């Protein structure tokens, strides 16, 4: 039976082929059969996690909490120079210039990505806004959030910073960020499930030396990653503690 690998659904769709290339490279590097399964939504992926169908995952910080603390996953690595930050944006012509001008009844467009939603809801707190006095519409992709803003179907949109920056120039010209998180210490993690835990050191050393050969460098490039850094248990636990302080 091959091991199952998945990636948090908030990745840039332009990197789908990159993840398949990475999976092929990884199978050769650690001599294990691994099947890549990409889910369309966080809900679908979470069900697979709950059903113990995942053995290796590039997880968002929110899901990493459950995976490490409840499912016994082991942290392996994180991509360098990639932290998870969020942006709240408005239509470029919106009169809203900052968060504190927002009022009860604000219409929000968001994906189901839990970490982005949580960070953005925290950034609305200074305006006294929360889930009870705002109206939330959930979309399947960040481009649909942009469309909601362009059509004035939403007052504000929640974006993963990286995804916002990768919107087309034409789209970005019609939008305007009003606030951007600067947390710096929250990031996606590559985690191994209990059935692959014995391969942790092998996977980690393969990832850390990816830049040493042209094939590995090419794989990193296809994901827009510069390199990987090892993540040990305590670093992951610290990030999880931090997520825990935010989750209320």
């Amino acid at each position: 039976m091959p091991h199952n690998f998945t990636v948090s659904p908030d990745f840039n769709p332009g990197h789908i082929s990159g993840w398949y290339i990475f999976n092929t490279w990884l199978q050769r590097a650690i001599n294990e059969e691994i099947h890549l399964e990409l889910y369309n939504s966080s809900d679908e992926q979470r069900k697979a996690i709950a059903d113990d169908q995942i053995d290796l995952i590039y997880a968002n910080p929110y899901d990493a909490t459950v995976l490490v603390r409840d499912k016994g996953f082991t942290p392996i690595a994180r991509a360098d120079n990639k932290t998870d930050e969020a942006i709240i944006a408005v239509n470029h012509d919106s009169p809203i210039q900052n968060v504190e001008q927002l009022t009860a009844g604000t219409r929000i467009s968001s994906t189901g990505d839990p970490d982005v939603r949580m960070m953005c809801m925290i950034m609305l707190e200074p305006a006294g806004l929360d889930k009870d006095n705002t109206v939330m519409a959930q979309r399947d992709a960040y481009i649909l959030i942009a469309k909601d803003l362009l059509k004035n179907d939403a007052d504000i949109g929640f974006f993963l910073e990286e995804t916002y920056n990768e919107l087309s120039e034409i789209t970005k010209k019609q939008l305007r960020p009003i606030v951007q998180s600067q947390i710096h210490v929250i990031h996606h993690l590559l985690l191994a499930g209990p059935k692959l835990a014995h391969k942790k050191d092998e996977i980690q050393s393969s990832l850390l030396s990816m830049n040493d050969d042209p094939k590995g460098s090419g794989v990193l490039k296809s994901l827009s990653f510069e390199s990987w850094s090892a993540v040990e248990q305590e670093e992951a636990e610290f990030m999880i503690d931090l997520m825990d302080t935010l989750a209320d």
Partner: protein
Amino acid sequence: MKNMMPDEISGEYREHTFKYHDNTERTVLITDIETPLPEGRLIVSRTDLNGVITEVNQSFIEMSAYHKDELIGQPHCILRHPDMPSAAFSDLWETVKKGDKWHGYVKNLRKDGGFYWVYATVIANVRKGEITGFTSVRRRASRSKICEAEALYKTLQ
């Protein structure tokens, strides 16, 4: 902890002396200058079991106005503002030492005598069933909540 010195203070100040349980004292100099936490920022720190700072992020350093090496190894109460009632901190420690999460609005004292308000959350770091330290995350608070907290803390002084 060192007393605050007049040459480090920006603007007019007044003095306050804290008396601690171990009979030590600290004189702080306070001004009415507020530095709001910028939108989108989170202040993060960790302490050991005794409340001694072991880790701070860049936002902590910038908002406190201290250098990192002036913070690491110091008790977290280096940021305590005299307007904060001791009852709030007693509640904090009682809560987190039980392993529960504590939330509250906190007025912190800067090295330059000014202050900043935050909404703080503190949790215990539990490793293999044991509490090994505490993580605190502070975020920007709404002005209306700050006003409520200010009024409440005056009654608790």
